[in-house]
């Protein structure tokens, strides 16, 4: 599988993401935000965490209007896979690839800890390595992770089984405890917790490995 990791000024999880993807067997290219095109033959685009453009205006707002994001949207429209983590999730909501928005945490605090997540569905390339109902521990590190979405869209997310992960103990006020959501075609996943920080025993846990392996497995079969 060929993966591209997008790098914005202020991204700080881009190299962690590349390490996690490589460990799972992907061939990874780093792509600068000013590039207008993705390298040829990219299967997965990963939009990493960090503080792109210093979180100016709104988290992810400026990054979502950068030249590379047009290419990312086109990639998704063609049925390509996209994974957005933390700031990457904020960027994906700002591009409109995923519904809703991420607001300031309800307790106004920056939250940095490992949290338990419930895998809500195994029906996606990202989550097929888990069983629905599994509890996994991923680190979170964010100030604006309070997911909000209108009632109608929430009902659609539920009925279409598009909530990928939820918090066991909601840390940030997200509606319906949502930690990660899938696009309609289930090929775009945005989530606040960091699977790429849970792939090495030296970092306190390896629950994230199944996400990357599942994703890679998708392409091994193809």
């Amino acid at each position, binding site marked *: 599988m060929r993966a591209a990791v997008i790098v914005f000024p202020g991204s700080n999880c881009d190299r962690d993401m590349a390490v996690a993807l490589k460990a799972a067997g992907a061939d990874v290219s780093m792509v600068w935000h000013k590039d207008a095109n993705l390298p040829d033959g990219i299967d997965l685009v990963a939009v990493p965490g960090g503080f792109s453009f210093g979180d100016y205006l*709104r988290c992810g707002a400026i990054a979502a209007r950068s030249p590379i994001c047009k290419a990312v949207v086109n990639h998704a429209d063609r049925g390509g896979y996209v994974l957005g983590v933390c700031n990457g999730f904020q960027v994906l909501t700002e591009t409109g690839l995923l519904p809703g928005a991420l*607001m300031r945490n309800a307790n106004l605090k920056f939250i940095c800890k490992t949290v338990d997540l419930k895998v809500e569905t195994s029906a996606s390339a990202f989550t097929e390595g888990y069983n629905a109902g599994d509890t996994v521990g991923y680190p979170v590190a964010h100030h604006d992770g309070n997911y909000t979405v209108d009632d109608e869209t929430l009902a659609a997310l539920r009925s279409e089984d598009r909530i990928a992960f939820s918090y066991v103990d909601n840390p940030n*006020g997200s509606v319906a405890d949502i930690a990660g959501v899938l696009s309609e075609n289930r090929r775009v996943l945005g989530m606040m917790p960091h699977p790429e920080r849970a792939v090495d025993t030296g970092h306190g846990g390896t629950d994230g490995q199944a996400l990357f392996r599942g994703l890679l497995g998708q392409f091994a079969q193809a």
Partner: protein
Amino acid sequence: MKARVHVMLKNGVLDPQGEAVRHALGSLGFDGVEGVRQGKVIELDLADGTSEATIGEMCEKLLANTVIESYSVEVL
């Protein structure tokens, strides 16, 4: 010409920052502050003749996230 854009969270969207400001005002002894909503003011210095429609487009495409925010434009 100049224009001022006001961006506010939509009614019904909980504003945790406004709520914190309300609490702080209360602890300073200001009674009767029943609600605080916090927004943004963005001042634009524009070429003369920029239409309000163009400014509206700027708001829709970047300045406001219309999923959670509303905006109003004041041409000065």
